[in-house]
């Protein structure tokens, strides 16, 4: 059953068509890899699905709800979606702990001011920060973390959202091998907890290791999809990456 579907989705930047009539389905409780050469529309797709870019045509369906023709960023948590970014976006002037606590904040102004259960929220924050080995850094400003730690903090923030669908845009890029292991473990863990993960990644070994399904994009259209071993061996996929 598809938890996330696009139908004839089209996104243009002035005259350039970044996504061209894309129809795909993401199965629930699976890890789906999205691959393709640079400029193929992968990040644009994630940006559209998370409401950060409007789309011109087509529709998106989440959790079998109605077809959406507009996605507002503030509704993303209501759809059970969270995401990370290719270029890390943290709350730079806040501490590591506050980057997580702000996600756990009650959305009502007065509850946010006077809400109790601080210990409970703090425990939640501790759990996600320990999962990415950042608990010891909890009082550091986000801006002072190393690149890899910043990447892990962004993943921790996504975990704290406790969403059903995780859109991860190149979560392994620039990470040391030890950190890659940590992130792989987290992604596998998400699947074990019946979450759905959509993963943009260039490392095909990681795609083979982690993904149940892979979608290949090229020039904003669907080139191929299916089981990674089969799809990644297809001639047209190899040509899209390496040229004819």
């Amino acid at each position: 059953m598809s938890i996330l579907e696009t139908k004839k989705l089209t996104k243009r930047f002035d005259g350039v068509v970044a996504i061209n009539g894309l129809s795909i389905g993401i199965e629930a409780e699976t890890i789906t890899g999205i691959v393709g050469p640079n400029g193929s529309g992968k990040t644009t797709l994630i940006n559209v699905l998370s409401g950060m870019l409007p789309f011109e045509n087509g529709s998106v369906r989440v959790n079998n709800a109605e077809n959406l023709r507009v996605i507002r960023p503030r509704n993303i948590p209501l759809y059970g979606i969270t995401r990370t970014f290719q270029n890390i976006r943290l709350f730079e002037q806040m501490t590591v702990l506050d980057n997580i606590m702000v996600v756990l904040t009650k959305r009502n102004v007065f509850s946010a001011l006077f809400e109790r259960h601080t210990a409970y929220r703090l425990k939640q924050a501790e759990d996600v920060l320990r999962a990415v080995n950042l608990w010891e850094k909890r009082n550091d400003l986000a801006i002072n973390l190393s690149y890899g730690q910043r990447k892990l903090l962004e993943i921790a923030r996504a975990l704290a959202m406790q969403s059903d669908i995780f859109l991860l845009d190149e979560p392994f890029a620039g990470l040391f091998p030890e950190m890659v292991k940590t992130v792989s473990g987290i992604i596998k863990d998400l699947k074990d907890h019946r979450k759905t993960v959509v993963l943009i990644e260039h490392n095909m070994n990681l795609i083979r290791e982690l993904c149940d399904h892979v979608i290949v994009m090229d020039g904003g259209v669907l080139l191929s999809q299916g089981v990674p071993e089969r799809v990644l061996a297809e001639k047209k996929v190899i040509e899209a990456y390496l040229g004819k």
Partner: protein
Amino acid sequence: MDIIPQIIANSIIAGSVYTLIAVSFNLIYGATKFFNITHGVMTAIGAYAVFFFGKQMGLSVWVAVLIGVLIAGMIGWLLDRFIYRPLREKKASQLALLVASLGAFTVLQALIAIIFTSRFQTLTHGVGVQKTFEIAGGIITQTQVLIVIAALVVTAGLMFFLKCTRFGKAVRAVSDDNEVSKIIGINTDRIIGIIFFIGSAIAGLAGILVGFDTAIEPTMGLVLLLKGVIAAIVGGIGSIYGGAIGALLLGFVENFGIIKIASEWKDAIAFGLLILFLIFRPRGIVRT
């Protein structure tokens, strides 16, 4: 008589007025990243509300002050709700927002002049009714004491609010990255609306205090805005404590700068300080 203690007192008082404007301007700028020119007219709105309810309607001073602060805050919120928010939703440029705020500033200032005339008015009931205190050789009135206390309380309160409350964390998140704040579920429009209310209320309070200290007139907001913005830039645009530091520095530089020259140079000195910072330290004292 040694004039230095009095100049120090004057510097702290001026710095305190600028602090109220600068920190509230920075609060709004931090979240919206645009130069909200209407911030200046909030000072006049607060002051004229007190003039109307306190002096013309005869309500007690404290009730009139409370109403004045609330009206300034409410008008700030309304401006955001019906002008700036629709523009943000249409992804209008910073320049469009700036022009819109300039327009709103002009309209509100004109309305005040139409309703209350352009004459100078006082909020106090007579000359010489204020108590004065001598502190280390400097004379300071009770209103000026209140100005200094208000600046301290507002700055400390805002810093506590932003640092220690969950709502404050959401405000800082919006200031840091509005788009990401949205996708983690923060209602950024509501947060910005509340920030406009708080910031405008503080500006209103500043106008009221200035009104009790000197006098009020419809264009009073422009000068206060310019000084507040200079303080905000000098201290560090978008930073609360940067705004307070910049405001104090501006107060001291202005007042010590005119020891040997005519006081008409005060504004030129303020803009000279701004230009120096823009050239040599554009990110301000706290480097935002």
